[in-house]
């Protein structure tokens, strides 16, 4: 494996190598073996598993946080004590038919299963089995009560599914470090990028974001409004909400470039995470969705950067 594609696989560096970005070169239909090999390595070759491990720990922690919040109202959510829409009603509304509800003991087993599987996944014990349990639980909790399921539920199902079917970890004989195929990393990275880009395009072409200057201003006034949002509504001039609206839209539309180009990635992380923190502060309960989205950024930090940060932290602590 070529060392320059390890861990990160910067698209720009690879495309420069391939001659795609140079004006005087036309990429031949039959690319050279070296270029093809670099792309294959970038997409599916073995890479340092550290960024994926960090992502997995954070992602599963966010899932446990979300499940912990939901299970606090388990009677309404998962048993017949709550009011539930019927199969016919949900189907008429365009939703799939729901899964069977549980008894009190069933809820206890489900909660214990999610807790153990989450812990096992975080500790990397029986990873494949833990992922299977987490995937099954994510499918069930999304499907059992669609009135308590949101986009974040769909992403838990999708990401656990991707992690489940893609190649697992292996240990490098020389360094003892975990290695993994870049496949899962690339697909999950692409999921985040496409999520932002689709959202930006939808806001632009199907939504009102270019038609009106007060889209964000009117959004923040409604049922999501926290005390912090109320305070900002009182003290900020309305034009500042317009500025935030345009900044959000610009970030979503530029996300593919900001997240793919190595030199711009720090800006993407800074803006992206700030955006989700602001969402969590200004909109009630969006902290769960924001936390989930922030975990994706762990995949855009390289293993070297993690090790450098960890080394610096250790030196600071002494």
């Amino acid at each position: 494996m070529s060392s320059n594609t390890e861990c990160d696989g910067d698209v720009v560096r690879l495309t420069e190598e391939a001659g795609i970005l140079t004006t005087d070169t036309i990429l031949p239909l039959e690319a050279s073996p070296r270029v093809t090999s670099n792309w294959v390595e970038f997409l599916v070759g073995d890479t340092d598993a550290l960024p994926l491990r960090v992502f997995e720990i954070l992602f599963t922690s966010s899932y446990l946080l979300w499940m912990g919040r939901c299970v606090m109202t388990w009677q309404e959510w998962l048993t017949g004590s709550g009011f539930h829409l019927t199969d016919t009603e949900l189907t008429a509304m365009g939703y799939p038919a729901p899964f069977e509800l549980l008894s009190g003991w069933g809820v206890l087993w489900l909660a214990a299963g999610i807790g153990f599987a989450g812990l096992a996944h975080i500790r990397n014990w029986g990873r494949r089995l833990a992922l299977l349990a987490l995937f099954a639980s994510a499918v069930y909790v999304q499907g059992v009560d669609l009135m308590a399921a949101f986009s974040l539920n769909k992403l838990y199902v999708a990401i656990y599914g991707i992690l489940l079917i893609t190649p697992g970890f292996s240990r490098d004989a020389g360094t003892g470090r975990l290695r993994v195929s870049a496949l899962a990393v690339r697909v999950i990275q692409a999921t985040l990028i496409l999520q932002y880009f689709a959202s930006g395009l939808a806001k632009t072409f199907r939504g009102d974001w270019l038609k009106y200057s007060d889209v964000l201003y009117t959004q923040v006034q409604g049922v999501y409004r926290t005390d912090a949002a109320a305070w900002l509504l009182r003290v900020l001039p309305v034009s500042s909400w317009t500025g935030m609206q345009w900044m959000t839209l610009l970030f979503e539309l530029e996300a593919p470039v900001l997240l793919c180009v190595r030199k711009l990635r720090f800006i993407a992380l800074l803006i992206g995470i700030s955006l989700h923190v602001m969402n969590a502060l200004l909109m009630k309960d969006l902290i769960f969705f924001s936390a989930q989205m922030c975990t994706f950024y762990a995949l855009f930090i390289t293993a070297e950067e993690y090790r450098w940060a960890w080394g610096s932290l250790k030196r600071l602590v002494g």
Partner: protein
Amino acid sequence: MNSRLSLLLILLVVWLVPFFYAGLMGQLPVGIYPRLSHQYTAAGLFFLKRSEAWSQMLIQVQRNGMVEWKMLDTSELSPMGAFGYRQRLDRILQETNGKSLAEAVRQRLAVWVAERVKQLHPDQGAVVSVRFGAKVWQANTPELAQPAGHWVPDLPADSPTTPFILLSSFAINQGMAQPIAKPVHVKPSTTKQPVSPIPPVFRRNPSSAPKPNSSTSVPSGVTPNHQFKT
């Protein structure tokens, strides 16, 4: 390596491309198994539109021997929160509202509400009627644009600027809910409330004003926001 590339291709076709398309367009171009198609619509579905107004679903009950209607605290009936200051029950009412099944769902819900209230407050007399209503809060009014604090889910029932709009009313008798024949709309107050002037930057060209949302029948001429797909 070939098997990894094949898997990448499969994930591209079954996940990334449809996920992007559904995020962009709101749904997949072809009908597939509902549970699967539902899975793709995670991006680009929320916060797309300007919120001209915010709606709030309300449940009121009448007890045996009482004339007045009492507003119920939905967080007591339905402790599970949806996103924002809304409960799971609010989402059910909101998402079914305006659909052909709305009346049947409310009828079933009326029985459940009466039973639930009886469980929660056994000493306060039997519920003899349940009614469902809504209020619509205009954006850019002082209540919403200059709020004292977070969204208050249990706002007064008869605020002059946001009248209670009756959706359905049911008499409860022996565990059954019977629709009360003709819904009577609660008369809105005629008192005009001062509304904060719209800043010039937000003044809209009338020709480009958004059309009322067809998915709800609650308001007349306004587009209440009921986004839950967070």
